């Protein structure tokens, strides 16, 4: 579904992604964990071209969509190709990013109507079904600033789903939420995982990652350090760097009073 081959990305002097290769199979739920600044979010953002890569290739559905080689020179793909890919790849952000001037229902229908060319009545029906799914049908006409963070994030998930994406990217979707609101968002993500949606989940919620993922990838300093099935990854991490990270997460959770189980 998504395949990264030898992807490198720099932000000025900082080498944010170092020769990252990774593939995500259709229907797979992949969680990406690691310390802040390890390149997890950057990798996710590269997957739908919110960041451009310096070298390597990213394939979506086996098509090398983002960077093509022409006369030996790297070239960013044209806008239309990028837009077509983004329409297939749903993304949910840490800071929700709901359109502040649009109501909940308009947030969900704006892209299906204007990007996919759906009729407004079809888009509305679909949006209502999605709102029902995320438990916010009653808020259809509310504006984002009238909602809690958890509600906003659930609307953001519904907005991404309305494009009927083939894969969903979740970028630390609970990091900006108050602890008591984390659960309602994770429940929605878990439902999607159960339904067989292909997902890449960047998260700090270790318990959640262990529970929903088919595979865990651990990143540090722009590199993929270790990957494996959740049970093996948490029970017997192979790398010292991974063990150190898991220990620090465990410590943090204990200090927080165990709100999130490891």
């Amino acid at each position, binding site marked *: 579904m998504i395949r990264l081959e030898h992807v490198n990305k720099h932000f000025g002097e900082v080498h944010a992604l170092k020769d990252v290769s990774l593939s995500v199979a259709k229907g797979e739920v992949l969680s990406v964990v690691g310390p802040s600044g390890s390149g997890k979010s950057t990798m996710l953002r590269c997957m*739908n071209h*919110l960041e451009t890569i310096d070298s390597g290739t990213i394939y979506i559905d086996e098509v090398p969509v983002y960077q093509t080689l022409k006369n030996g020179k790297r070239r960013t793909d044209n*806008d*239309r190709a990028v*837009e*077509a*890919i*983004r*329409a*297939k*790849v*749903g*993304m949910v*952000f840490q*800071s*929700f*990013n*709901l*359109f*502040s*001037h649009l109501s909940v229902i308009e947030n969900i229908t*704006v*892209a299906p109507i*204007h*990007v996919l060319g759906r009729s407004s009545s079809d888009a509305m029906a679909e949006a209502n079904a999605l709102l029902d799914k995320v438990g916010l049908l009653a808020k259809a006409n509310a*504006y984002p*600033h*009238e909602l809690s963070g958890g509600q906003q994030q659930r609307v*953001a998930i519904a*907005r*991404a789903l309305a*494009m009927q994406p083939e894969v969903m990217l979740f970028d630390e979707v609970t990091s900006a939420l108050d602890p008591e609101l984390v659960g309602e968002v994770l429940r929605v993500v878990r439902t999607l995982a159960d339904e067989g949606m292909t997902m890449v989940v960047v998260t700090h919620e270790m318990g959640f990652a262990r529970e929903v993922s088919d595979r865990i990838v651990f990143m540090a300093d722009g590199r993929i350090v270790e990957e494996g099935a959740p049970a093996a990854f948490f029970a017997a991490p192979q790398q010292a760097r991974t063990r150190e990270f898991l220990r620090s997460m465990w410590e943090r959770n204990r200090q927080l009073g165990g709100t999130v189980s490891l």
Partner: protein
Amino acid sequence: MLTTFLGLFDFQGAGDYMPALLRGAATSLALTACIMLISLPLGLLIALVKLGRSRILRTCASTYIEVIRGTPALLQLFYIYFVLPSFGIRFDPFTAGVIGLSINYSAYLAEVYRAGIAAVPQGQIEAAKALGMSRRKMLRLIVLPQAIRVVIPPLGNYGISLFKDTSLVSIVTVKELIFTGQIVSSTNFQYATVFTIIGAIYLAFSYPSALLVRWLERRMSVGTKVKPVGGATPVTAATQ
């Protein structure tokens, strides 16, 4: 002392020339309306070009803005009314005034729009991109609707400034409020009365408009993350 001061005024006699002053006020309002109608869309166009992808067009827009903002509005009016006729291009005074101040205001309004667009949070743009929107759709559906809320109060302030700045076109003999006042007072010598009445007329329009803008400002700030951008007074105000 007070009697001497009050003796300078003759409001009873004002009835004779009030119709002329009111016609002048109507001309000032007509100028304001025409110039706003032209410079609101023109300013937006310039701002969009300045934020666009063509480097040549971007440079053109920046040059336009810098040249216009870096020279007095009076000079621009002189150019249009006195210099262009040497090249065979002639306008009547009203048209020359409208063209001159529209050119001037569009440059200032372009900067207001640009600031408004820049104030739209990056996250909104990323969300639009992630949904597969093209640049054009993103601009039309997401960026401009949010930017407009931010720029309405400063645009309103520029509208009020413009109403006062229309007095500049008296220099190209448009019979707006100030020029009418000069004509009237040079025949009846009632300088104190005439210009006091004119001041009152300006204030009668400007102050309620300012209250309206303030009210809009409060309304627009509800429910948006975007803070209104400050509307600096245009340079033209200082040239008077």
